């Protein structure tokens, strides 16, 4: 079955590769036109967003890729996105999860340490800005829900940018603090301890509303400030793009564009840092540790220090994204940092291919789209069926009788679980295996990667 697919796909792939630029441009334009014409269609959006993949996949020269990528991300997506804010939201989430997945990739993919509590670092970043960028400091003595309404903000909104850097440091320190005691443990014990740590952070966030109200408990902290946006940005955007957007863009929508661009910027930096690290001495030390710890020690690699470095770098990526999330949502609650999120990020890494940067980004995009668009689309479809008086023919079951509990959007665990099992059994190297892995597999024919 897999073979058959390969036989069909490969000739097509080879054919397109002989005129890649035409195909990529056609793909981008087709996607853009579809989304422009039917801004509500999920299918059109899928066509547009897969153009990223064809841009990555087909061999062209670097400058063409760079220009096309810039046009796509800086022009086409913002302009089409403000026509339907949901798309910007999807891409923002993809970027957030891609950053998280890249961070986890350093820990799991590069250094081979299974971290099941990764969102804890994300929570640290998010709560950091949530505390300092809201009224929470003045709410400290009040139980949740009893504070007076006219409290001032502790810091101005523009401190947000500063906190993106502070979050890097704080999250990295948290990573080191957690790592120092537990990194002596190997493999599966480490996984459980990090899981426990993730739960500890979540329970703390849930319960630190007394004796002093740090986190406002399960209700979460709101409102959290956004950095100020000058008026001329909105005006300028409207003046240039109003003819194609078709309506005046409000500052609130413009904020979505801004956070989208910021997330993109962070991703670019993260990818750059990850690439450089992978090719550096540290990266090779990580690979050595992943492949064989004992041999790595024998080669003189400072084991604990390298593991700590992996933890710290991975954590810092999550910390930045946490701040960005707190700023863009203006609301943070412990719900967003459950164990399930950690597994979701792990599923992205595994699906895409652990250790492979493009793979991990692809994994993040796939899982997020499945989550936000496919599952939610199914939910919508089901609820429409429920309201109609359609009947399943043979078993004579009226859709209206279907339980309202059955909401596919809530079955993320099923999705994550299936991804993890199927990938482990059939393709443990992921959708886009890392280069090193590829070489190993082709050289020795040892599919288990031991």
């Amino acid at each position: 079955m897999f073979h058959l697919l390969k036989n069909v796909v490969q000739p097509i792939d080879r054919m397109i590769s002989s005129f890649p630029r035409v195909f990529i441009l056609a793909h981008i334009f087709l996607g853009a036109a579809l989304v422009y014409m039917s801004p509500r269609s999920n299918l059109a959006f899928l066509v547009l967003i897969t153009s990223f993949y064809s841009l990555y996949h087909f061999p062209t020269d670097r400058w063409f890729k760079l220009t096309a990528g810039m046009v796509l991300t800086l022009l086409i997506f913002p302009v089409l996105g403000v026509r339907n804010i949901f798309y910007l939201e999807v891409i923002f989430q993809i970027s957030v999860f891609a950053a998280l997945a890249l961070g986890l990739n350093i820990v799991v993919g590069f250094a081979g340490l299974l971290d099941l509590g990764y969102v804890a670092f994300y929570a640290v970043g998010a709560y950091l800005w949530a505390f300092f960028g809201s009224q929470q400091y003045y709410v400290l003595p009040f139980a949740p829900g009893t504070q007076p309404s006219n409290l001032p903000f502790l810091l101005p909104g523009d401190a947000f940018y500063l906190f993106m850097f502070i979050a890097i440091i704080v999250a990295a320190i948290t990573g080191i603090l957690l790592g120092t005691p537990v990194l002596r443990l190997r493999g599966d014990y480490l996984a459980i301890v990090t899981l426990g740590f993730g739960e500890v952070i979540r329970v703390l966030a849930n319960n630190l509303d007394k004796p002093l109200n740090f986190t406002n408990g399960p209700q979460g902290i709101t409102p959290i400030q956004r950095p100020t946006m000058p008026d001329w940005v909105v005006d300028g955007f409207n003046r240039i793009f109003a003819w194609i957007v078709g309506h005046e863009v409000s500052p609130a929508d413009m904020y979505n564009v801004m956070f989208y661009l910021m997330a993109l910027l962070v991703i670019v930096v993260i990818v750059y840092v990850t690439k450089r690290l992978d090719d550096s001495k540290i990266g090779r030390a990580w690979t050595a540790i992943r492949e064989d710890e004992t041999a790595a020690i024998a080669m003189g690699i400072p084991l604990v220090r390298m593991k700590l470095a992996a933890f710290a770098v991975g954590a810092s990526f999550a910390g930045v994204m946490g701040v960005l999330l707190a700023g863009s949502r203006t609301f943070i609650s412990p719900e967003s940092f459950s164990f399930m999120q950690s597994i979701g990020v792990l599923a992205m890494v595994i699906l895409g291919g652990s250790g492979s940067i493009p793979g991990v980004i692809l994994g993040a995009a796939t899982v997020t789209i499945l989550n936000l668009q496919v599952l939610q689309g199914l939910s919508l479809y089901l609820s429409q069926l429920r309201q109609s008086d359609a009947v399943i023919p043979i078993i004579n079951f009226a859709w209206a009788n279907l339980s309202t509990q059955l909401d596919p959007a809530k079955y993320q665990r099923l999705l994550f679980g299936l991804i993890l099992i199927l990938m482990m059994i059939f393709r443990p190297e992921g959708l886009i295996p890392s280069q090193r892995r590829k070489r190993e597999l082709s050289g020795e024919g040892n599919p288990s990667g031991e």
Partner: protein
Amino acid sequence: MKSFSKTFNIQELIRPLGQMAFFSIGTTLLLSIFTLLLAWILDRTIVGQTLLDRLNVSLFTYTLVNLPQVALDGLTIGFVYAAIALGYTMVYGVLEFINFAHSEIFAVGAFVGVEILIALDSFGVLKGASLGWAYVYLIAAIVAGMVAAGALAVTVERIAYRPLRHASRLVPLISAIGVSFLLQDLIRLVESLTTGQFNRIFPTFGNFDRRLLLGKMSLGATNITFGVSVKSIIVIVAAVLMLVALNYLVNATKIGKAIRAVAQDHPTASLMGIDVNRIISLTFLVGGLLGGAAGVLYALKFTRIDAFVGFFPGLKAFTAAVLGGIGNMTGALLGGIVLGMLETYAGSYMGVFTMGAAGTEYKDIFAFSILILVLIFRPQGLMGASVAQKA
């Protein structure tokens, strides 16, 4: 007489009973003394004063009065943990692999048992059941839960773990996490498709909710009664029976010898004519049976279950297994009892001792903190000896 002693090893029945009694009493005594000491010290501080103002009892008396109840609750939950922990520890002993999906196998057992009782209840069978029949139904539910969980455990091993037997260590673990998540939502899917309800409630029947009065004590103006609910007794008795049976199976039968051989060395065991795959399946089956029974007992004790019911007991049982020394069966027993006790003591007294700043809600963190501390200072666990290298 000689042949009798060969086929029936009475010592292997008495030994675990003695161990359990020793562990339970020892843990209870140690923890109680520690708690009382702490209460006695805190009594002299503002903490004691606050309680005196609020409830008009000294902290020491308050602690003493609640102690028997707390100890009993701790023991009950401790035995449930021990039964689950044995599932982890046996699989770890044989495959050196954390069966992350064991918590969902536990949950499936709980659901099957409770569903059967709910079905019986809807036929009106349970309402008028005499005491004897009530116990028959309960045992039937436990057995059904065991069978379902055991079958599921074997199936999961066959589908999701066996193909990965020779992959690197993290690969089957990730697959197990996937199975765990998949099963959680499958339970939810089935439940929501059939009834649209998220929770299941253990039906009330028989005399399980009754409390047996053990003694009375008058303290100042108030009369304190010590009681033990029937379901606590059932949980403890059932768990003890299972643990003894398991111990007998592993330590005194031919199959048990095979299991121990496989745990030591797969290739050598197979050279000795042991079918390694069958023994591994069997280990999963036994772990699943125990987990399923523990699930029904858990539902009996806590009444309300949902699709995610397995997560915390599973994690804590794993903690218990590690605490006792993973791979070591006696260790799992000790770890379960100690952890259940510690957690119950902490949950009951932390609120009073910290003047309400940190209460029961930190109970779950407590278990994890213990896990982390154990792994840092004694990674081989309390009873473990040679597993340090594996960690």
